[in-house]
């Protein structure tokens, strides 16, 4: 096959980026972010939504830890309300058996999933449970998760005041519920004990269910990379590739 005319030449560089570079700030002059700086948007949630307190605590954590913008990535999804609230009252995977919603007028026939059991089974090495009505505990769990080396999972109960008010009253002492913490003698490295805690019915327990230190995926990958780099590090990339091409002559 003869070579084709290749139009990529003109595209090999991204060209003028229209960005104005500025010099980096010396490390000492950097200040940690304030809550005001980090809150880019005010979410349009319902007044009283449990998620507000979780978000506020997250900002507090960033402030407390003196973190910089360049060092944080925040990926937001949804919290567990036992109902799909944002889309206005549909059955969610954690809705209890018999729960009536717009998608199920007769009441749910599915047993709810147990997020804590699933997280343990999926191999998270830090699995904890908390609830938005206990801010100090949420913060405590977030800090512990942040300090953990590995994938951390926190189930945070967050009430949907609009479509499932009272879903977590059983875990709220102000509403006549209880806030039982994980017993002091619980062995956080015992996976079976963690499952046992996860199986408890409302209010269940709050705190760290499971925490083990294992080489992380990142560490395992880094080991593969460093072993390979030792063999090739002195070579520019094109010469590493050239070795492969030379074998295919």
């Amino acid at each position, binding site marked *: *096959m*003869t*070579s*084709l*005319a*290749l*139009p*990529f030449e*003109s*595209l*090999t*560089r*991204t*060209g003028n*980026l*229209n*960005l*104005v*570079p*500025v*010099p*980096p*700030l010396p490390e000492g002059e950097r200040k940690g972010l304030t809550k005001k*700086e980090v809150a*880019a*948007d005010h979410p349009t949630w319902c007044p009283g939504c449990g998620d507000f307190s979780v978000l506020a605590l997250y900002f507090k954590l960033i402030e407390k830890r003196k973190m910089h*913008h*360049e*060092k944080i*990535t925040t990926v937001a999804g949804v919290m567990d309300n036992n109902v799909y609230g944002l889309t206005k009252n549909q059955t969610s995977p954690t809705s209890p058996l018999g729960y009536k919603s717009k998608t199920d007028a007769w009441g749910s026939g599915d047993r709810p999933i147990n997020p804590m059991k699933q997280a343990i089974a999926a191999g998270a090495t830090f699995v904890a449970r908390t609830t938005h009505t206990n801010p100090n505990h949420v913060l405590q769990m977030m800090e512990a998760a942040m300090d953990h080396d590995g994938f951390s999972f926190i189930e945070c109960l967050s009430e949907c005041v609009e479509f499932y008010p009272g879903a977590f009253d059983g875990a709220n002492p102000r509403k006549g519920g209880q806030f039982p913490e994980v017993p002091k003698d619980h062995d956080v490295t015992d996976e079976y004990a963690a499952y046992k805690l996860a199986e408890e019915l409302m209010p269940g327990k709050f705190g760290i269910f499971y925490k083990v230190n294992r080489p992380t995926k990142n560490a395992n*990958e880094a080991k*593969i*990379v460093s*072993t*390979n*780099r030792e*063999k*090739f590090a002195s070579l*520019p*990339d*094109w*010469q*590493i*590739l*050239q070795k*492969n*091409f030379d*074998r*295919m*002559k």
Partner: protein
Amino acid sequence: MSDTSMAAPAQAGGTPLVTHISEAVIRIAGNSQDGIQAIGGFLARLAGRSEQEVMTFMTIPSTISGGPSIFQVRIGTGEVLSAGDEADMLLCFYQHSYEDHIKSIKLGGIVLYDSDHVTPNPEWQENYRHVGVAISGLTVEAIGGTGRDKGKNIYAMGLLAKIYDLDVPKITKLIQERFSGKDTSIVTNALTCFNAGYSHSLENLLKTYQFKASEGKKPTPGSRPQVVMNGNEALTYGLIAAGVRFGAGYPITPWSDIMELLRKELPKYGGSFIQCEDEIASVSMAIGASWGGRVAVTGSSGPGISLKTEAIGWAVMAEIPLVVVDVQRGGPSTGMPTNVEQSDLNIACFGGHGDSPRVVIAPASVEDCFYTAIEAVNIARKFSTPVIILTDQGIASRIEAFEMPDLEKICQDITPDFTPVADHKPYDLSAADGITRHLAPGTRVASGKYPVVTGLEHDELGHPTGSPKLHVQMTAKRRNKLKKLGADLPTPKTIGPNEGQILLVGWGSSLGPITEAVGRGRSVGDAISGLHIKNLNPLPNGLEEIFQGFRHVFVVELNDEGFYGYGQLGQLLRARYCDPKIRGINKSDGLTWKVKEILDRARALADAVQNGKA
């Protein structure tokens, strides 16, 4: 074997005649575990090292082990554009290989068969020259073991080397390289096998062939050597040359080779490839890595691409650079996983929800796979867009020889640039042609205004908005930047004159057969030309002017003719040009085009149109 010319007279004592040939098409048929791909690979690599052109074609069963398999190799000293319509020789190991493939060779062609397993059919013996060698038995005689052990492929390779007067020192070196690192006895056995085959008396053949010295393509002093590889390898190395250092995927034939090779190679460059739990996780991970500042790759084949389409829509919305490889196979669903089809054009161009413009490029050859990968990465970066590389099983598995790329010049460094900036609007509506660039997170923005990334419609900083006005403006921005790309693309050149009766339009792997069909047609007086479109979405400008020069525009595609008589590219071209002379030549047998097939169909369709029957 074309251009047959008798060069040496018959010599006494049954020494074979030597016939000079310019090309040979050899089909090797056996079972998938016989190592026939290895023979084909040796022949292809040898041709590459001998400055010959080569192209291969293979079929493999989709079962784990066993099942008939073939490897066809076409070697020539001129330009080789396809794997060849009819074979000059059939090398067959079993009765079924003999019976199933006898019709694939030319009348008068040679059947070289393993006489331990094949009983020739007297009827066929009249039309084809039969040469039986007890390949299985003689292999055992040479190296011991049983007939079920490996080795007969290498023995057969020895026979072929003798018949085609191949370069024995070069083959010896290839065999040594292939088995290097293994037990030395394996290399010794392989060489013993090869020599036994090579020394086998072929008196009953009484003829050997010699490739003529290269005519059109003599190696010029200082020219680069040839490399031999398949399309999936070329694509993988292209991605690495382009600077891609992260990928994520899920195994599916025929994409798996690419992820296997990336997984093996990337750590050498400090990169990594992750096999995810599924297709959705892998596209999401690649998007995450791309968002992180360095274009990442994911890929799949048809069914997997369907699973990725939602996430591709997210990348379109968030304007994240991303490369998605689709190695097409026969579909839908599990379909014909080891066969070729060009039926993913629609899903590549339009498979997504909402108005989600993206770039689709289809490489035309193995060499082109290498350069297309680089082009895809650069388009993704420049336009902050997902780019789909639409290759196919035909290119993925076929082996070609091409000029060694100048890697020092080509390899790119696309390490993210973290130079702090004064301000940054990722979706700046005042940017020329709507082209904005994705800024790696971690870059300090002095104004303190950091962007947000979301799948929701957004303002210039990425903050979610439900504003109808912004949705209009942002939809136009995402469209306009790729319209600009389309306007900058070069208009493809016609193969043959730019006017005539028939224009054969093709894409992807059909470039070779179409080019050959044009050559063959023109040599017998057909006013036929070809056009190959590499950039399928957006299309380049200038095609309409080319179409005007022809009476018929036939779009040659390996997909179904659909409800209305034209395939997926045909439909796209009709939608854009509203030209009723655009018609389809389609097939869905899972095999690559034969030159004869294209020519016969084009002539018949032109006749039918002229007679008002189409």
